[in-house]
């Protein structure tokens, strides 16, 4: 290399693209606006995590105290005497009622919601699809206590006929047997929950179906598919993971719904094979109805049950993610 005395030898870095002046510039954070925004977003992210950790730690701590004093088995006891000394309580009946009523709600709501969403996006004339979508949105805005009041004052009295019909034709299954009590059982709760989660499932599915690629629908049409076959071949497969996500959103709401269930259900601390007869409560309903009269120890027991609901919700979401991920290579995403 020629080193002349008048010009400084070029440093080796000069062969690379011009280096950025400072380290901070390399991270793109020199402008004050960027720095403030970075600080704010990072700070609120950390704060959020801290708050959540604090809540979790607090709830777990409170729950662990009362759990260590529990005379019954927390998972299998059919009893809730958490104010007693020593306390005796278990979540078996609550878990049963929560899961069963939510399953009933899903069985009713998902097909109807998917049907409505398909009707809005693929069948209804444009003049009709707008108003229908609007009404569904309105349903989503009704407060849950209103659903509860409607359920107690209208739905319950009107379900007697349905209950006796079910008993007549399907009573032999055991699941739909009815002894004739007031229809304030898990089935009624399931029906009410179905109505409540219908809007969210419908709206999310509708958005997904609207995105179904035109080119694949035309491919099906050009093969001689009828409208329903187009939906089956291209719209539903495309919307599959969306339907699952939508259902999970609905399920999340059904699992945690409190006021409407507490208003309609007559809870009982036994488990019944029939969803028409009294049997079971739900986590949220149990907390709502027991909280006011609970001692400090009783409240801790309710907190423990709330943590179980939290775990169930997490498991459900995890399962949904697994289902969505399983057939990812076939999803519309890599078309």
């Amino acid at each position, binding site marked *: 290399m020629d080193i002349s005395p008048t010009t400084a030898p070029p440093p080796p870095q000069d062969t690379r693209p011009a280096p950025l002046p400072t380290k901070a510039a390399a991270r793109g954070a020199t402008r004050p606006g960027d720095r403030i925004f970075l600080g704010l977003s990072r700070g609120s992210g950390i704060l959020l995590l801290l708050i959540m950790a604090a809540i979790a730690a607090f709830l777990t701590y409170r729950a662990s105290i009362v759990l260590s004093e529990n005379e019954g088995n927390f998972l299998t006891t059919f009893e809730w005497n958490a104010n007693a000394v020593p306390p005796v309580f278990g979540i078996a009946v609550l878990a049963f009622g929560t899961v069963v009523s939510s399953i009933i709600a899903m069985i009713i709501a998902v097909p109807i919601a998917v049907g409505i969403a398909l009707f809005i996006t693929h069948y209804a004339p444009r003049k009709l699809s707008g108003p229908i979508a609007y009404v569904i949105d309105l349903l989503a805005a009704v407060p849950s206590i209103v659903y509860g009041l409607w359920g107690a004052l209208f739905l319950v009295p009107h379900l007697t006929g349905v209950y006796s019909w079910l008993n007549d034709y399907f009573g032999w299954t055991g699941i739909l047997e009815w002894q004739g009590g007031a229809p304030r059982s898990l089935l009624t709760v399931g029906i009410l929950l179905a109505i409540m989660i219908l809007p969210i499932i419908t709206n999310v599915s509708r958005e997904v179906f609207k995105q179904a690629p035109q080119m694949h629908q035309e491919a099906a049409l050009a*093969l001689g598919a009828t409208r329903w076959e187009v939906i089956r071949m291209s719209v539903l497969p495309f919307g599959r993971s969306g339907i699952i996500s939508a259902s999970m959103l609905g399920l999340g709401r059904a699992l945690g719904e409190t006021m409407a269930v507490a208003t309609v259900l007559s809870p009982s601390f036994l488990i019944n094979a029939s969803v028409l007869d009294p049997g079971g409560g739900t986590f949220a309903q149990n907390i709502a109805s027991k909280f006011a009269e609970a001692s400090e120890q009783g409240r801790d027991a309710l907190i423990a049950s709330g943590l179980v609901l939290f775990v169930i919700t997490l498991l459900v979401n995890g399962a949904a993610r697994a289902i969505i991920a399983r057939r990812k290579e076939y999803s519309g995403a890599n078309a």
Partner: protein
Amino acid sequence: MRLPTEPLSDLSQDLPKEAVIDMAKRIDVGGLTAYYGSHKAIEDISMTVEPRSVTAFIGPSGCGKSTFLRTLNRMHEVTPGGRVEGKVMLDGEDLYASAVDPVNVRRTIGMVFQRPNPFPTMSIFDNVAAGLRLNGNYKKAELADVVEKSLRGANLWNEVKDRLNKPGSGLSGGQQQRLCIARAIAVEPQVLLMDEPCSALDPISTLAIEDLIGELKERFTIVIVTHNMQQAARVSDRTAFFNLSAVGQPGRLIEIDDTERIFSNPSVQATEDYISGRFG
């Protein structure tokens, strides 16, 4: 499965015998006008498409080639506001007669689109079998045979025979387009419509498709829209030139003739101008 020889409706029960045996069919279009809502996209088009031949549509973009192509298998009316006046006769039977079910028309007249559109949620096998499954009546072993035959017919078999259960979206663009052709020919249509099937492909895949078109015309009546004049000259027997007098005006058929004549000695000046690159 609907047999290819079965008429579309009761209207043509008295078809001549030869037409029933010969799978490829002739198309006669008379005074065809198509609208998008109130916008008239093409006006008063009449032409004849000969069986077992390749007819190419050329013309500047927006002149209504795709619209016209889609009126031939009643895909145009799927577009909101899409409306058609005039006649399309398939071997003497009016496709727009009120007794004709458009679903049956589309089973008889297959279509390949500009962008390859295999069903992303289906495997390669299922993509090819999709049309047969729609028709319902098939046996499992028979299905595998038809899939193999169609993939061979589309010159794709050797490339995909070891991965029939993999998704079709994992193939290259050219392979996907040949998969779409296999899907279309699996149901044994009488006519195959192709709307710029190579415009999204590289030159090698384009050549593969052009070779394929040369083979397919032995069995099908083929209509292909193309932007590429060399392609029209290479693959087609007849060429139709479309044009529009001004933007917003409906497109019209200027002339249709043997490809050789269109490219050497067209009878209309506008065709010559377009082919020699003076406009469009």
